[in-house]
């Protein structure tokens, strides 16, 4: 590289001629970062719409959550529930009545005041018959909503729901103003520290500071912020080095991360996420219906090798559907560690001494393709033949695997935080049915005691680690690359987000 491009100064004139002189000199203002109250944040994929209450894409929340929209509660950078538009709350001893004291003096960006009627509207919209909220299930335990006065919201639940306050912090539960709800998809109006200003489709979303932000304890330093969407990892890298983008909180290609080492302008900040890469198996289809087969396959997997091959060694092996970020995490990678001989023996015991063959439906994303290829080689060691069938994600994967459960094995990163309950859902693509597991999760919801809940989450993790309904592989890292002078971005991602509230430039 260095030798090829060390001619920089020598042929400047020749290059100018080649460039036909047009626009070269005029490019500078565009490439140069604006004054120090603006930040440009890079994202790989552009969201479809900007209303997190009607679309499931994590990118919607990554632009709007905590920046434009806020919820009754919020989730802090450590993954803990904190009050937000609800100042405080009181839970009845039976866990079925929640009384929220709402914050006064909060205004939406269009000037409308936030009060209990707005909160009621938001929750009714999310749980109603024609709701298209992607997390509607989280609101269905609400039986009735009462608004005794403008600052009080009382929820009566059908059954205790221990995770309710946590779910209320999610992007899908943000408060929306009735008159703008229908247009939030293209023109989001919230209560947050930033006001939506423009969306150049295919390019960027611009936000500007909300001068009337209710939370006077926070001094928001950025006057403007842009999210720029750059799909190609090479283009992401070029935009970072050229200074067109100040930060890529989730850089797209782990194999390019090393290229930023020694860069005196850019910092590489590797944190953790909630993205659990798991190879789900169809638990109702032979031979995966046999627990021993699933356990044997788990023991055939060298997780460290998968992480190395799929994600350049950046990632944390997991032994259950849970991440080190999550409350009550237990390291269960030792339950079925990599052991070829034991795997073979267990496979023989299950009646497959000569192995078997099956098809892996792998999405086209790099992590899925690479992981599949490594799994294929690892399974071959125990005599199991895996054919890889690339399945277009999301469209065909959602249709074939998620909806129709027509597959043997698949691999995908589950992005939603604390989603261990997917193994209790019926129908769900794993076709895993274990009443014991469901009972543990039901106890979590029935309990209002945090330490009791943590203990129960530990039990749930252990059941999955033993049953292996899916091969638990690794948690993806958050590959943050950003300007060394840009401070305040979250290092970890307990919930998919790009919270800009504290982002500022250091002089």
């Amino acid at each position, binding site marked *: *590289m260095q030798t090829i*491009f060390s001619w*920089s100064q020598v042929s400047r004139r020749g*290059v100018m001629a080649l*460039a*036909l002189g*047009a*626009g*070269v000199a*005029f*490019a*500078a*203002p*565009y*490439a140069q970062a604006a004054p120090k109250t603006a930040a440009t944040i890079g994202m790989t994929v*552009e969201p*479809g*719409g900007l209303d997190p209450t*009607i*679309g*499931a*894409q994590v990118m919607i929340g990554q632009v709007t959550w905590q920046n434009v929209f806020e919820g009754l509660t919020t989730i802090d950078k450590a993954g803990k529930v904190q009050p937000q538009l609800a100042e405080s709350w009181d839970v009845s001893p039976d866990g079925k009545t929640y009384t929220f004291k709402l914050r006064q003096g909060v205004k939406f960006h269009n000037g409308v005041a936030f009060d209990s009627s707005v909160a009621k509207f938001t929750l009714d919209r999310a749980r109603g*018959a*024609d*709701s*298209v*909220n*992607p*997390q*509607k*299930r989280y609101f269905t335990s609400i039986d009735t909503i009462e608004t005794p006065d403008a600052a009080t919201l009382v929820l009566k639940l059908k059954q205790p729901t221990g995770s309710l306050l946590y779910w209320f912090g999610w992007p899908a539960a943000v408060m929306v103003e009735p008159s703008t709800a229908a247009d939030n998809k*293209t023109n989001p109006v919230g209560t947050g520290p930033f006001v939506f200003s423009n969306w*150049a*489709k*295919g*390019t960027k979303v611009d936000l500007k500071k909300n001068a009337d932000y209710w939370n006077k304890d926070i001094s928001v330093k950025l006057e403007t912020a842009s999210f*720029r*969407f*750059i*799909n*190609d990892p*090479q*283009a992401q890298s*070029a*935009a970072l*080095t*050229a200074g*067109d983008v100040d930060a890529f909180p989730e850089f797209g290609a782990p194999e390019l991360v090393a290229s930023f080492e020694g860069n005196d302008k850019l910092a590489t900040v590797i944190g953790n996420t909630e993205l659990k890469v798991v190879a789900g198996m169809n638990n109702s289809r032979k031979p995966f219906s046999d627990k021993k087969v699933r356990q044997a396959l788990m023991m055939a997997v060298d997780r460290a090798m998968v992480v190395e091959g799929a994600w350049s060694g950046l990632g944390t092996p997991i032994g259950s559907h849970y991440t080190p970020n999550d409350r009550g995490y237990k390291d269960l990678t030792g339950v079925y560690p990599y052991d070829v001989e034991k795997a073979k023996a267990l496979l023989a015991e299950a009646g497959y001494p000569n192995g078997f063959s099956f098809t892996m439906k792998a999405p086209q994303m790099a992590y899925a393709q690479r992981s599949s290829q490594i799994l294929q080689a690892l399974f071959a060691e125990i005599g199991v033949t895996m054919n890889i069938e690339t399945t*277009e994600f*999301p*469209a*065909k994967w*959602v*249709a*074939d695997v*998620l909806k129709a459960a027509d597959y043997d094995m698949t691999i995908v990163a*589950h992005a*939603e935080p604390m*989603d261990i309950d*997917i193994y209790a859902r019926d129908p769900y693509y794993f076709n895993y049915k274990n009443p014991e597991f469901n009972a543990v999760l039901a106890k979590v919801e029935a309990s209002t005691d945090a330490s009791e809940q943590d203990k129960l989450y530990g039990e749930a993790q252990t059941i999955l680690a033993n049953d292996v309904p899916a091969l638990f592989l690794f948690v993806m890292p958050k590959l943050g690359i950003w300007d060394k002078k840009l401070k305040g971005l979250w290092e970890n991602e307990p919930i998919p987000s790009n919270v800009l509230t504290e982002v500022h430039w250091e002089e």
Partner: protein
Amino acid sequence: MISIFLRRIVSLIVTLLVVSLLIFTVMNLLPGNPAAIMLGTSATPETLAALRTQMGLDEPLVVRYLAWLAGVLQGDLGQSYTYGVPVAGLIVERLAVTLPLALMAIVMSVAIAVPLGVAAARRHNGLFDYLAGAFSYVSIAVPAFWVGLLLIIAFSTKLGWMPAGGFPGWNAGLWAGLAALLMPAIALALPQAGVLTRVARSAVLDVMGEDFVRTARAKGLSDGAAVWRHALPNALIPVVTMIGLQFTFLIAGAVLVENVFNLPGLGRLALQALSQRDIIVMQDVVLFFSALVIVMNFLVDLAYLVIDPRLRVAT
């Protein structure tokens, strides 16, 4: 003359109708449904049903096809499922990038290829011909997106003269817009210029062997005058055909280069719509591409009539 013209127009409309039916059928036969994609992995069946109704995906296919066609005829291309805005606006926004990009690339391509091809033909088998040949082969063999990457590394990353990608929008100023398009246009133009050089060279060579060029030389015209006044005009038909093909390719097929430079062009809109199964956007964009190819062919045919008076006689 007029009757040729009318016949062409009628066949153009019939073709477009058939194409629209094909597009609609193919797009709606694709596996995957946009509502399920939008609602993700946690959606309940009721939410999915509610969204399908809202999006009008419950209607029978025939009804949806006719509604789409009726809309298109009235200039209403429908609403994007993902963006939630009218598709016509999206296409116009993207054309504001793609059209100037394609024009810049085609102008560069012609500016390089026609002089090069003519010169190579005049020095047939000479050193210059070999050099021009080498240029063609190399520029055809090297993929445009790779040229784009090299340009970015050289002029953006190393020298910092040019933006590394993205498009500031035309309201950021004419020069800022052109600067953002310059490198992608070069990357797109080089392979096209390679092809066009070969076509121009062989067309001129063919014509130079004809009797009328020899006659022109015999009546005392210089070699150069014979080429520019007699050979080149007669060699233009294959060249114009190729330019027409290249232009449609540059509009619809620039997606790899658009990705490298992160340009919000029409190709990327199509790709994005495909991955999200934004069926209505896909239908409209593909119909637009098809219409463009058909209209381009029509225009190229008209250009033949201008270039070659013999074709103006009704056949």
